[in-house]
């Protein structure tokens, strides 16, 4: 298959990127991808960063991840248009139709709800798949191993009961 990298190549490339980001010649910090969300929420809803303790706490990492996010959007867009050729507008994934239902309204409502609790969850734990799971476990951090284990269990239990996988 020409327009897709195998998982092991992805793992090796991602390791290289993480090491570059961690190294003092790179950014001297881990990759994170959930602090930018409350940061942008503060921006969009026009919350005064001096008034809210949390916005003050995330001022620097939020800005860093904000710039990185712009790069992610750009890199994802360019790759999807020119390499994987997967760019298309869509409202509902094929897998949702197969294993859940074919209602666009259902998909959008669940997406909104899931997005909402995802960010609450990530901020409670202090990180997400990138910051905690990937960057944290790479530093042998116990906190990230606890988070990773809980996420895996919760993901698998939810998947088992949320989708209809029988006979399919």
């Amino acid at each position: 298959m020409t327009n897709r990298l195998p998982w092991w190549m992805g793992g090796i490339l991602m390791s290289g990127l993480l090491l570059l980001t961690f190294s003092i010649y790179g950014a001297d910090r881990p990759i994170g991808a959930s602090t930018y969300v409350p940061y942008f929420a503060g921006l969009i809803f026009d919350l005064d960063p001096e008034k809210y303790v949390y916005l003050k706490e995330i001022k620097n990492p939020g800005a860093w991840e904000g710039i990185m996010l712009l790069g992610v959007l750009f890199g994802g867009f360019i790759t999807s248009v020119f390499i994987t050729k997967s760019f298309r507008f869509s409202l509902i994934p094929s897998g949702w139709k197969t294993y859940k239902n074919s209602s666009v309204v259902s998909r959008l409502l669940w997406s909104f709800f899931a997005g909402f609790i995802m960010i609450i969850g990530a901020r409670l734990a202090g990180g997400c798949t990138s910051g905690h799971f990937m960057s944290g476990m790479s530093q042998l951090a116990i906190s990230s191993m606890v988070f990773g284990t809980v996420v895996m269990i919760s993901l698998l239990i939810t998947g088992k009961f949320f989708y209809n996988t029988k006979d399919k």
Partner: protein
Amino acid sequence: MADVVFMTEESNSTIIDRTFQMVESVIHQPHGSVALVFLIGVIFGGIIQYTRVDKFEKIAGFSMLKDTIIPKMLFLTIGITSIALYFMIDAGQAHYHVKPIILQGLIIGGILFGSAMAILGKCPGTGPVSIAEGRIDVLVGAIGGLFGGLVFTLYYDDFFKPLMGESLGKTILPDFFKGNEDITALVFGVLVIIIAIAIPKRELFDEADLSQLPDDQRPDKK
């Protein structure tokens, strides 16, 4: 909320001002130039897109145990990085940025995050890549996320901060094996790589993607 709907010229310029402040903040941080941080994002997005791990069928598929590409790639990344990073830190080429053990926050947050990941089929890192390839449902999820970030910020002091509990420190695995720190890091990394390879490979494909490919390149027909 009202000031969002009726956005005035003034609040508009505030957003622009604050976007400039974001760039300025990164310039003043000792964490790489704006160009480097942007480039890290581009490569991150490129790898996620090129390996297709942002797809609903990968993350939600893993939650149904119908696809194992996510754990294989994730564990391989962690295994390789943990070994290399441990020795880089030892040599002074990098530093630890360990997150604190806040048990309640980690467990409650992990439960919420894991079930949200199964339902949305994305995480905060892969979501933007899906939005960049035109997935409107994920954009709606991101708007949900912005409201989540808003609620978290508004009720941080009164509700969320106490809910997270006290920090039990920033312990790392080698702290439990004093005297054998190097071996611990090495064994952990090798074990995680073995797990990544040992997880049986299963894939759930998306017909909408497959139909774009010529028949002899379809991975489901090989």
